[in-house]
């Protein structure tokens, strides 16, 4: 009897063990592996980073407390001391002007390059060359383009606009060429078959078909360029409200004036964002 019992008990034990093992709901795939590895390495590198940063004499807790205090002063007690309200508006207009010029110049250059970069409008070789050049342009930060141009053209609006245009060209060429590539090839083929020339195909079919995308991408870039223009005013002497910010913070140490300038920047940026969202929504429904 005892001998016969044994296997039965062993079998029961096995069953219990099997029941305790979890049923695999999510199979372990390559995707899951890459997602997990990415997340773990991000966290580990972040922790490692916090241990190695050059904190100098700033402390995380003390700095954060003073940051909160400073935010209070900035946002609740803003004042004008080195400029008046209308002077600030004028400086904002200069910054907007820089953004307009950059976006327009960049848009025109990008339209041409975008046509060359679209594989369905040219051949693979030309497209790859243009895309390579664009990748190179995009890899260099805007501020470095501006500063490099400033050596040849001197600090000021010329270097700022040309340098900022480089990045806009990179960004817009990619966006434009992708929307050209998405378009219906049948239209191009039909025009080709009827004997239309390249320029005729571009102006009669390609641009009318993608004008909505072109407009919305260009406006999105304009929104980005406003921020960039503020930054270039502060870092590369481009003038405008960014330069006032740099002076208020770096020279006068006037926290309240920094608050005023921040309000100006914030107002324009939010207005631009709202307009961009409206344009985007219109495009989606149309």
């Amino acid at each position, binding site marked *: 009897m005892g001998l016969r019992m044994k296997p039965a008990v062993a079998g029961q034990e096995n069953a219990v063990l099997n029941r305790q093992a979890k049923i695999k709901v999510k199979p372990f795939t*390559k*995707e899951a592996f*890459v997602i997990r590895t*990415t997340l773990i390495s*991000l966290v580990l*590198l*972040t922790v490692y*980073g*916090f241990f*190695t*940063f*050059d*904190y100098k*004499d*700033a402390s*995380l807790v003390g*700095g954060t407390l*003073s*940051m909160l205090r*400073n935010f209070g002063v900035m946002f609740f007690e803003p004042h004008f001391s080195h400029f008046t309200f209308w002077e600030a508006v004028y400086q904002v*207009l*200069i910054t*907007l*002007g820089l953004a*307009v*010029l950059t976006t*327009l110049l960049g848009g025109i250059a990008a339209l041409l390059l975008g046509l060359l970069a679209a594989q369905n409008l040219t051949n693979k070789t030309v497209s790859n060359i243009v895309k390579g050049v664009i990748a190179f342009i995009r*890899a260099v*930060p*805007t*501020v*470095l383009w501006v*500063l*490099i141009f400033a*050596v*040849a*053209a001197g600090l000021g*609006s*010329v*270097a700022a*606009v*040309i340098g900022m245009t480089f990045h806009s060209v990179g960004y817009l060429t990619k966006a434009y060429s992708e929307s050209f590539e998405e378009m219906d090839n049948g239209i191009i083929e039909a025009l080709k078959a009827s004997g239309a020339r390249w320029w005729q195909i571009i102006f009669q079919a390609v641009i009318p078909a993608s004008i909505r995308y072109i407009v919305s991408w260009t406006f999105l870039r304009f929104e980005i360029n406003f*921020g*960039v223009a*503020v*930054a270039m005013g*502060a*870092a590369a002497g481009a*003038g405008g409200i*960014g330069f006032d910010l740099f002076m*208020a*913070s*770096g020279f006068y140490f006037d*926290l309240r004036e*920094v608050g005023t*300038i*921040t309000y100006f*920047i*914030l107002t324009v940026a*939010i207005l631009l964002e709202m307009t961009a969202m409206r344009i985007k929504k219109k495009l989606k429904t149309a």
Partner: protein
Amino acid sequence: MPVNTNFFLKKRLVSLILIGILLLVTYGAMVITQFDAVKGLTSIPQAVEWGIKNFYPNQDALDKLPRIWENLRETLLISLAASTVAGVFALVFAIIGSSTTRVNSFLGTFARGIATLFRNIDVAAWAMILLFSFGQSALTGYFALFFVSFGFLTRAFMETIDEVSNSSVEALRATGASYPSIIIHSVIPSSIPQMISWLLFTFETNIRSATLVGILTGTGIGFSFDLYYKSLNYNAASLVVIAIMLSIFAIEFLSNYIRRVIL
């Protein structure tokens, strides 16, 4: 026939008016910024000529490579830490702010408002503001990048949640699943690939912005560039540019690989 010609005439008129407005705005912008178009055009060949003659690394610059690498490493780590921590905060705010998963409309609007505030103050402005609190330390750059990444990621994550998990949330709600289990078992798993993609995107953008912030706050690779640039050591400055470019290419390559696998 007359209807047809009218149509084309009207179309042509509209585009003419639009071009006119655009030209007027351009002219106004040129006047107000004192932009000299001729100088702008001629400066491009000038800059290219100058670049070929002066802007390349030499032996002297290569000796500075260890110091450049040290600063680049710090900048890369700051950009990464800012994106990761911003990602964690953005996840919480996106869940609160998304119209699919929000707790109530007041908290939702609050989360959206905070994100809008942080996103729309430019990173350079944040850097200048934070200089008051953290001085010329790595923390200034870190927080500047963190705030902007947080604002941007919150919006991106909200759109992702709305896009991906609308129907599954409804289905789970119908079965009587609790709010936390809906979030943990449906919302996060279904939107995590897209969220990682956005996180990698902010990491790439942060490296470029970190250069700018470094110039303003005197830290990291931006400081290296500024130092060599202002002392007219263009050979070393060009090496800094090449180092930044290579690291951006490497990270873009890596994140494109990750995107290909997970999306």
